[in-house]
Structures are given as structure tokens and as C-alpha cells.
């Protein structure tokens, strides 16, 4: 079995996707990684794709779907014969609720079916922008769940539904949580980055109005 991981993040090796991939593949041997961020290497990557029979594709949610360069990569994949090969997707998003990622999750299943591949499942995770700053401990058991899902892939099994549910959390905010969120300083992370760059005063600028 040849196992290829597709890092579908425009941030490449500095991406949150790469961190998730490291959790999922830490017990896997002989994993080959390709990066969609290397746009000029997409054709080269197709040789690696063609040669493998199991894939893990991880991407962040960009304007409600996969990033543009990840879509370009998938268009190239569609042109080769992927029949009977199995695939797992991970969609992670800065938004907390999984509802934002569910539509592109449906597309991932559609893409698999259209290419006559085997769909082992899709992991949806919210709140991933915190990965830029948070230590592994911040994610609690989620890291272990990802590791266990990595084992599912190694065995060629369908992803454990209970783990998918635990990673995704509540589909939408409860009324109670909405109330709590009103009082939480959720702007803090962005404001600290703006201040660090000396751009805080310009944060609401409308340069093209």
C-alpha cells in the first residue's frame, strides 16, 4: 500500500493542516507528502498521486470551500484514473461550528464517487486558527482522536463516526453559548496581531470606498 498525504493549504509547511497531518501520521510508516502550495509542482505531484492507492487530503476552509489552488489540484486529480483508490478528507475552519464546512464535505464525497474511489470519511474541525499559537495541550483529547483516525486510515477502515462527532462538536451554537459569546472578548486575538504590526488604528479602514 502506498499512502500519500496531500497538504491542501496555501500556507504549505507552515500550515495548520501540516500540524493536523503530523498528528494523524505519527504512527504511519512510509508516508509521502505533497503540497498544493507548490503550484508549479502540481504535474509532478500527479505522478506521486497516480502511484499511490490511499490518500489523506487536508485543507482549510477558504470562502466556504477548498482554497482555489486546492481546487486546481483536484481538477488535475480528476484527469487521472483513481478508481478503487481510497481517500480521507480533513476540512478545518477558523469558524467554531462545523456547519460552515458541511457543504464542502458533501463535495468531497461527491468527488470521491465521481472518480469511483472509496470514501473512508471526512473529518470536520472548527476553531483551527488557534493552532497558529496554541500548544498541543490546548487541543486536549482532539490530538489523540486525530491520531486514532490516522490508525483507521492505516488499516483502510472507515473513519470512526464517534471520533468524527467528538472532533466536530455541536453543529451549531446553543442559545446559551450565543449569550456567553456576546460577553467574551473574541476580538482579542486579531487586535493583538494588529497591534503587533502597528496596524490597529487602521483596522476598520475602507481603502476602496
Amino acid at each position, binding site marked *: 500500500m502506498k499512502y500519500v498525504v496531500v497538504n491542501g*493549504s*496555501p*500556507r504549505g509547511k507552515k*500550515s495548520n493542516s501540516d500540524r493536523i497531518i503530523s498528528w494523524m501520521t505519527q504512527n504511519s510508516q512510509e508516508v509521502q507528502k505533497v503540497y498544493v*502550495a507548490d*503550484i508549479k509542482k502540481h504535474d509532478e505531484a500527479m505522478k506521486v498521486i497516480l502511484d499511490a492507492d490511499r490518500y489523506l487530503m487536508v485543507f*482549510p476552509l*477558504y*470562502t*466556504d*470551500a*477548498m*482554497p*482555489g*489552488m486546492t*481546487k*486546481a489540484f*483536484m*481538477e488535475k*486529480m*480528476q484527469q487521472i484514473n483513481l478508481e478503487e483508490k481510497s481517500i480521507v478528507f480533513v476540512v478545518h475552519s477558523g*469558524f*467554531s*461550528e462545523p*456547519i*460552515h464546512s458541511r*457543504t*464542502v464535505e*458533501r*463535495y468531497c464525497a*461527491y*468527488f470521491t464517487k*465521481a472518480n469511483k474511489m472509496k470514501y473512508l470519511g471526512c473529518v470536520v474541525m472548527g476553531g483551527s486558527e488557534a493552532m497558529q499559537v496554541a500548544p498541543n495541550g490546548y487541543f486536549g483529547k482532539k490530538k489523540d482522536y486525530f491520531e486514532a483516525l490516522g490508525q483507521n486510515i492505516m488499516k483502510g477502515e472507515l473513519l470512526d463516526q464517534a471520533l468524527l462527532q467528538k472532533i466536530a462538536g455541536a453543529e*451549531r*451554537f446553543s442559545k446559551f453559548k*450565543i449569550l456567553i*459569546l*456576546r460577553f467574551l472578548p*473574541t*476580538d482579542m486575538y*486579531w487586535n493583538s*496581531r*494588529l497591534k*503587533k*504590526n502597528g*496596524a490597529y488604528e*487602521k*483596522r*476598520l*479602514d*475602507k*481603502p*476602496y*470606498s
Partner: protein
Amino acid sequence: MNITIINGIQDTKHNKYQKTLEETVTALNKDHQVDMFTIDDMNVAYCCGCFSCWVKTPGICIYKDDGVDIVRSIAKTDYLLIVSPVVAGFISSSTKKAMDRFLPTLLPYIKIYDGESHHVPRYDKRSNLGLVLLDEGDLDDEAVKINFDIIDRLAKNFHAPKVFKACALLENIKEVITNEICSC
């Protein structure tokens, strides 16, 4: 009305639509101000996720390419129309590339709208959103539904008051677009 059209045609198969789209724009320009962006003919980089447009140069993309014109147009538009072929069951990568570059029109801050978290818009203008998928008679219902649902999600995130979704053939695309614009 200010109208922004994102034209995501990227393959020779759909090139025959270009002339009709240009004719449609000419007709609309009699009563409106239309900016059509044919992404494949432009120099537009893929969004690299650097968040410069949020935390370094608010509202301004790190790339000084033709994508800047798209943001400038969207900031003032009344109607944002996306015209795309369906490639591998989804809007084309050229279309998606342009969509990713809409990011500077939002603020990084999140607020709860209709029970969901969404970004706060940077500009005061709220534009309607439309998606027209080019139909060669080869679109399957499931793919169309997924693409329409993605545009519904996009409409929520970009605070569009109204969202329009349609499939159009070469024979009726001009009619589909002009009828929709006239109804607004």
C-alpha cells in the same frame, strides 16, 4: 446599478460562452455600470492565507496584481454575479481563486448572525449575490445542488440580502442574466 461579474471560464470547451457574455455586458451597460473580470485573462494570484489584509494592511491584499481591481469593484457593487463552468463537479478553480481574493472586504472580527458566527463586513455596501453555472447538458443534479448550497453559504458570509442561483445554456444565458438584473 453597479454590477461586478466574475467570469471563471477556464477551458476551451466553454470558450463559446465568452462572446455571448460580452454581448450581455454591452447590453447591460446601457442602464448599468458593469465590471466583468475574466479571471483566466488576468494576472490574479491565489490567496496564500497570509491574513495581511486583516492584520498588516487592513483591507489591502499583499498581492499588487489584477485581483486589486476585483476588490475595488466589489467594495462598491450592488450586484456580484459569479459565472462559472462546473469542473470536476464544482465551480472552476479560476472562479474559486477570485472568490478567495474577496477576503479584504471582510473584517477579521466575528459576530453572531442568525445563530451562526460570521465575519463582520468591512464596507457598508451590501450587494446581492448570483451564481450562473454554464450548462452543457452534462450537469448532474447532485453537483448543481452542492454548488448552489455553497453560494448560499457565501451569501451568509458576505451578508448578501438576496441570492440568485441558476444554470444557463449558451442559448439562454443572456436572457437569464438580464432578466435577473432587471428584476432587482
